[in-house]
């Protein structure tokens, strides 16, 4: 985009939605970023005002605006509790795209979002080469979560504690799956997401186990890649669209009733963002994305709403206590709240205890975590304190990104709380 004037014209087009903000400030109560920084520019009200002012060319510093817009986890908490119902996420996404189009995408992001992620073979290869080399760089933290850290890579990864990459990704273990539907039975496309495929493979395996237990046939084609949310949140709509195109192609022709993911972020992207952006590729893709969106479902919601999985009744006397963290994408975008709890309660070996503020963002926020690790940790600490105060032995989530964040904060605090996916808990109870 050539000049600031053009930039402001595009921003002006957002005017209607920005005007709907009545500046009541109620978003301060729920914004994790504001909770950590206390800065008005970090809360939705401040960001909307900033975008509004930028649109009217009062601010001549788009870099500063890009920086402020980046200080946001896109958790949607503000939108979910905004009295007049301002479509804050749309405005933020679009503003990021516009500002990004003006400033240009960071070269590293460009490489990742446009060259690496849209090419699953290259992405997979990079990860497979990386996995065995981890041993050289990473060492165990000794924390109960089984995390590793990489002091030599501190310049890049910070002091992160994370789960190691799987030696064998899910797609290598299983190849392409296209199981035969049982007569009158259900068939689903399983979309493990990058983390389900490469990091939390046990979690993805647990999902497959549960689906098999319920005689659900699985379609998992070759060539799936990232859903595109990291690119889009970084303002790179083109990168996101490229990745979506790859996925649409991979899923094309599959015969399935639902498309399920164990990752709340992936599900909400397939359901809400793909149809919104698919029109940019063409009418055919738009139709495909719409069809997929109609079939997209969180795996917990599928288990409870479709397969009618129910709580097992009174938990065993020595049941393990588990507390549940509501992932933002699951609760605030998809409205999935009771089902993950019911899925856990289906295993009588666990008893579900609620923590305080279960739906307060854990601080991961996708690429936010990469660029604002200090804030991410600070936000995560509040979640950690709530988890620990619940006295649960396990904390479960329905999104691997949250699991990663929970592991990081708990591991740093040397807490003896394990992190699991809700479906893993249920899977344990199945023979």
């Amino acid at each position, binding site marked *: 985009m050539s000049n600031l004037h053009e930039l402001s014209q595009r921003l002006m087009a957002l005017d209607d939605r920005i*005007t709907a903000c009545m500046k009541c400030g109620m978003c301060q109560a729920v914004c994790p970023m504001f909770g950590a920084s206390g800065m008005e520019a970090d809360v939705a009200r401040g960001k909307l005002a900033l975008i509004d002012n930028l649109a009217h060319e009062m601010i001549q*510093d788009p870099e500063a605006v890009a920086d402020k817009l980046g200080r946001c986890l896109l958790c949607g908490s503000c939108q979910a509790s905004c009295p007049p119902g301002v479509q804050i996420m749309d405005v933020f996404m679009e503003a990021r795209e516009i500002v990004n189009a003006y400033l240009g995408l960071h070269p590293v992001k460009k490489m990742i979002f446009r060259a690496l992620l849209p090419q699953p073979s290259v992405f997979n290869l990079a990860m497979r080469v990386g996995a065995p080399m981890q041993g050289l760089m990473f060492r165990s933290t000794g924390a109960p979560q089984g995390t590793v850290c990489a002091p030599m890579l501190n310049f890049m990864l910070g002091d992160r504690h994370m789960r190691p990459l799987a030696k064998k990704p899910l797609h290598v273990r299983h190849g392409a799956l296209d199981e035969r539907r049982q007569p009158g039975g259900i068939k689903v496309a399983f979309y493990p997401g990058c983390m389900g495929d490469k990091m939390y493979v046990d979690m993805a395996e647990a999902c497959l186990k549960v689906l098999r237990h319920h005689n659900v046939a699985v379609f998992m084609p070759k060539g799936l890649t990232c859903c595109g949310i990291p690119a889009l949140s970084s303002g790179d709509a083109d990168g996101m669209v490229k990745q979506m195109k790859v996925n649409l192609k991979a899923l094309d022709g599959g015969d399935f009733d639902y498309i399920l993911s164990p990752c709340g972020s992936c599900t909400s992207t397939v359901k809400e963002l793909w149809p919104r952006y698919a029109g940019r590729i063409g009418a055919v893709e738009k139709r495909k994305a719409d069809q997929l969106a109609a079939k997209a479902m969180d795996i917990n919601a599928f288990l409870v709403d479709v397969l009618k999985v129910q709580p097992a009744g009174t938990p065993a006397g020595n049941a393990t206590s588990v507390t549940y963290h509501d992932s933002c994408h699951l609760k605030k975008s998809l409205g999935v709240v009771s089902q993950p709890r019911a899925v856990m309660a289906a295993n009588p070996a666990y008893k579900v205890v609620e923590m305080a503020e279960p739906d307060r963002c854990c601080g991961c926020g996708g690429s936010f975590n990469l660029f604002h690790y200090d804030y991410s940790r600070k936000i995560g600490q509040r979640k950690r304190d709530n988890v620990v105060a619940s006295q649960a032995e396990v904390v479960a989530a329905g999104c691997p990104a949250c699991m990663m964040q929970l592991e990081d904060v708990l591991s740093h605090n040397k807490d003896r709380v394990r992190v699991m996916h809700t479906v893993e808990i249920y899977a344990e109870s199945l023979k």
Partner: protein
Amino acid sequence: MASQALIRDFEDLIGKENVFSSEADRQSYSYDSAVLAPVVPSLVLRPTSTEQLGVCVKKLYDNGIPMTVRGAGTNLSGGTIPDNTDTVVILTNGLNRIIEINSDDLYAVVEPGVITAQFAAEVAKKNLFYPPDPGSQAVSTIGGNIAENAGGLRGLKYGVTKDYLMGVEFFDATGEIVKSGSRTVKCVTGYNLAGMLVQSEGTLGIISQAILKLVPPPKASKALMAVFDEVQDAAEAVAGIIAAHVVPCTLELLDNNTIVRVDDYTKAGLPREAGAILLIEVDGHPAQVADDAEAVERVLKANRARAVHVPKDAEEKFKLWEARRMALPVLARCRPTTVLEDATVPRSQIPAMMKAVNEIAAKHKLEVGTFGHAGDGNLHPTFLCDKRDKDEFHRVEEAIDEMFDVALKLHGTLSGEHGIGTAKSKWMEKETSRGTILFSQRLRRALDPKGLFNATKLVGI
């Protein structure tokens, strides 16, 4: 923007991380919740201790720089919008410690940036009760509550912020520390400066600490919803309840437009054709609650309530209050701009006021929904418009002018709880007198000779 030298001085005094000078940061402190034009401050400071606060005020005073203190910026009258572009905004959210909660003597000592709801929750953990509950309590601060004398749904029985302020510590314009009140229930030492700071809207001093009264929580409560065909009947029922010597903790009214809008949105099955509904809650000792609820029901029926519902469990009660909580959010969804007003009249004048509001809205071809704390006579007529439509917004302004004229004629007041700020300062003389303005200005000038504290607010200086 402030000079580099001044910025560096403040960075030395309170730390680089607490001084905000970038355009983007400054412009995000140019507005509050009032529908008024923004003014960008020259610098934003966030002191993190009482000492730092004092140092900031002194330095600004010495340099003759105007200052505006800001809590959560939720006031609806422009109290935190800078007076001019030289103004420095002082944030209180770095001063957010609860210093003491004393269960034996029933008080707490807090810093001004403590968030109201968080404070109430901490107090509740000790089985104590801090009643003031403005609708903004999830984000508003104790300092802002004191400076605006915020009230809430429980105002009728439990009073408002001023009724819980036992003492304050604050900085005057020169940076001197001033203390008034004490941890004792009785204290007549010196002028009641704490009372003076209440609803002072950041014009007399910057509160750095407050001593707040706590009370034991009520043991039981009961809610009722009464449906009326006519607003008039609902309003008479309000007066009837008080005349029957029952003081509910909450007594709220929703008019027809609000009911319909809320029902459209929540599908809660509200009585859409009702002229008004009253939502009532009585609390206290269980025996008293039962008695009061019975008396209330009698009065409601005597005043032609078409139906009186008593929620049978906590869930139903929650749904009932949800209708009230959703009033503003739902109205706010209808049009881009929502102008929430704060006209307050003696309880007996509520019918006249409701009638006038609807007539004025019709005359100016505006949509209005009215809800509010009927028990206090404190109504919130809410005009729905689009401020970008100059003509429509002008009509809203005219309507509000006329509405306040009516409120004053009915012996009411400009503001039951949202303050004067700059939004309503032009009406001050109408409600009070020329002498009041002059007296207030003399007082301000004596305390703040350079006119640095929120100079354009309230009565000006």
